[in-house]
């Protein structure tokens, strides 16, 4: 499957964006989807200009929005997480562990973080995101959920 990326010479997020609809069938399979998500970390690492072991924030935001955001439901907090990444200057990159964990986080977490356990082994990046979100948008999200 991943060869496809190479074949079609998808070398940038914009091309990926246009290709996503074509993948939609494959994306419906949750296992495949997870693998695609995880693979995208490597792919994103390779296409970015610097050669580091982590995914730069801008790339991360684009990929998250593309891949997770493309699914109409089932993956929460993608937008607000991207907002958090944009607003927080101290966070400059995501490592693989954070990337992979975010997938699980997004899939299993409730709107209001009801089932969020601070003492569980979430990466500190996600702990900080939750704290930021709670401080910021509590009232807003309550309003929204009432509608």
């Amino acid at each position, binding site marked *: 499957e991943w060869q496809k990326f190479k074949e079609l010479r998808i070398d940038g997020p914009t091309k990926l964006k246009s290709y996503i609809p074509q993948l939609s069938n494959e994306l419906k399979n949750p296992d495949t989807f997870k693998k695609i998500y995880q693979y995208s970390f490597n792919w994103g690492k390779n296409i970015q200009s610097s050669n580091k*072991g982590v995914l730069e924030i801008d790339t991360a935001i684009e990929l998250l929005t593309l891949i997770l955001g493309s699914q109409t439901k089932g993956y929460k907090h993608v937008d607000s997480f991207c907002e958090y990444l944009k607003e927080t200057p101290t966070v400059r990159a995501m*490592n693989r562990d954070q990337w992979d*964990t975010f997938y*699980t986080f997004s899939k299993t977490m409730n709107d209001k973080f009801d089932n969020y356990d601070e003492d*569980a*082994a979430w990466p500190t990046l996600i702990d900080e995101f939750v704290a930021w979100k709670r401080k910021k948008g509590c009232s807003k999200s309550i309003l929204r959920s009432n509608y």
Partner: protein
Amino acid sequence: MASKKPKITIKPFRHQIQVDPNYAENTWKLLKGAIHEIHKRNASGLSFEELYRNAYNMILHKYGDRLYKGLQQVVDEHLRGVAEDVAGSVDDAFLESLNQAWTDHKVSMLMIRDILMYMDRVYVQQHNVPPVYDLGLMLFRDNIARSTRVKDRLLKTILGMIQKERTGEMINRGLLKSITQMLIDLGVNSRSVYEEDFEKHFLETSSNFYKAESQEFISTNSASDYMKKVSTRIREEMDRVAHYLDSSTESKIKEVVEKELIAAHMKTLIEMEGSGCIALLADDKSEDLGRMYNLFARVSNGLEFMKDKISNYVKETGKKMVQDPNKQKNPDQYVQSLLDLKDKYDKLLVQAFNSDKTFQHSINQAFEYFINLNQKSPEFISLFIDGKLKKGQKGISDEEVEVIIDKVMMLFRFLQEKDVFEKYYKQHLAKRLLLGRSISDDSERNMIAKLKTECGYQFTSKLEGMFTDMKTSAATMEKFKASKEWNQTHGVTLSVHILTTGFWPAQSASKCNLPTELSNCCEVFKKFYLDVNQGRRLTWQTNMGTGDVKAYYASKNHEFNVSTYQIVILLLFNERKEMTLKEIQEATAIPEADLKRNLLALSMGRFKVLNQDEKTQNVSMTTKFAYNAAFKNNLVRVKIPPLGRVQDQGQRQQMRQKVDEDRKHQIEAAIVRVMKSRKTLEHASLVAEVIKQLSSRFLPDPVIVKKRIESLIEREYMERSKTDRKVYHYVA
């Protein structure tokens, strides 16, 4: 024909005892008469043998019923009469009369029982009726003790007497004892009469009495006086029980008294202004506190309550103490007040709290709490010890020093940030060793031994290394003096300490442009040393040295004992009379913060070797420093005091950063250690295990531990389990 023997039958001899039908009645009449006489206390004329035989015969001839019923009737009738007498007596004589009736009754019944003993043995057993004596008791109980005219009056009288005694009057205790004993006996193998007719009410009225009394007394008296009174009352009640109540009442009345006098007022006693527990603690009133401890010990939760209040008070006092800005200016005072506080509570524990371990534990916890509220505690404790181990103590013997150090070690145990203490201790020890200021090697080694016992070998191995270095340096100096290089230093007497990196406090390689006189010496020594010890690398630590420099003034020549940096600075003024801070820095290359400190010591200290144009502690790049030609001092040799022992903000921040760096490494090392041995571990357990391992040095923040875990995951020392996100695996 044989003849038949005649049959002889032997018939039993049937004695036809003609029992006179009146026999039974006659016998009974005889016995009845005797009982009357006994009742009239006129028994001397009776023949025991005759009466016993009569009773015996009645039982034998199956007239037991008649006898028993008759007995019952006689005694009953008699007692009714007695009841009249008793009920009719005046108040003052009432109890006496009852007591007399009881005594008489007992005497009579004993005699009657003796006469009718056969009935007790045979008839009573067979027919399952109460034996004679018990029957008498029951009749007395029903006819007299519980008769409507006697029962309530009796209770009232007894309670009245007790009340009188409680208010201080003397009463007839013997009489009361007899009466209460009577009530016990009347229960016939149970305490029911005593408990129902007396004890129940006694406990109730006592409870009300003490409720009222305690209320009144506590509102008008101090806590210590109140407690003295409580002790007295308790003693009195015990005394009362011993003298005229049944022993079974002891625990019950004790409970009532303790409840009304102590339990009901615990809070007031603790918090009372001026004399409550808190006030007593403040004033060291150990006797009153001891009394309070003993009283509160009687009540369930009493001691818990007291202990918690004391703990809170200690926490508060301690908190105020460590946050007092005045104390923080003077580390010795700070630590001394802590020591004094500990002394105070140690004494109270022994004198007032019976060395109670739970109290000791809770006070220790309070100490641990507030000592760690102030982040400077480790530094100050190290400084205090430094002070005690330095030369120049006036009039304190070695043993006294040891005692003080032992006490300080107790405070040390309370520190949570022992790694901070270690860093400071190393620094202070380094200064003491290099400047030759320790009292004695023995005291130093003693101290290290104590630290080893507390914290283990790891803590002290480097400290011991420092000692070894000093010895080795001395040996090396001897060799140097004997060598050919010794004379190549051109008049500068050089003494070198060689410090093994890693043992001594970590210093970054300090820069300094040494004047030629000094750099020359350094090269000479270096050559000598490397000849003997090839393959080693020497780095000069110019920030740790000291030296003497001669200064020639118009009036007098002086010799200054200063730090190496200061020598370098002062020698600049051989060329120029005046320089700005910037110029001095460019010439010497000494780091800015150190430069400022050293300059200030020369210009703003007690001995003004240099003049400063703006007389301020906040020097800037443009501040001018000038050679002070007018310097005067009575002594030839002047020691410029070394820089402040207490760190300033900047130094403290630096130290804190180093500590945090070290901790990061230690946390990671601990994580790896744990994962290596357990291979797979859940997040919460890993964090808990790491904290436990490091707790003897410091308390890691779980968030920081988590960050370190993530960092280790990134560096692939460990990984998250694919199946359960909360579980980690060790990566070999």
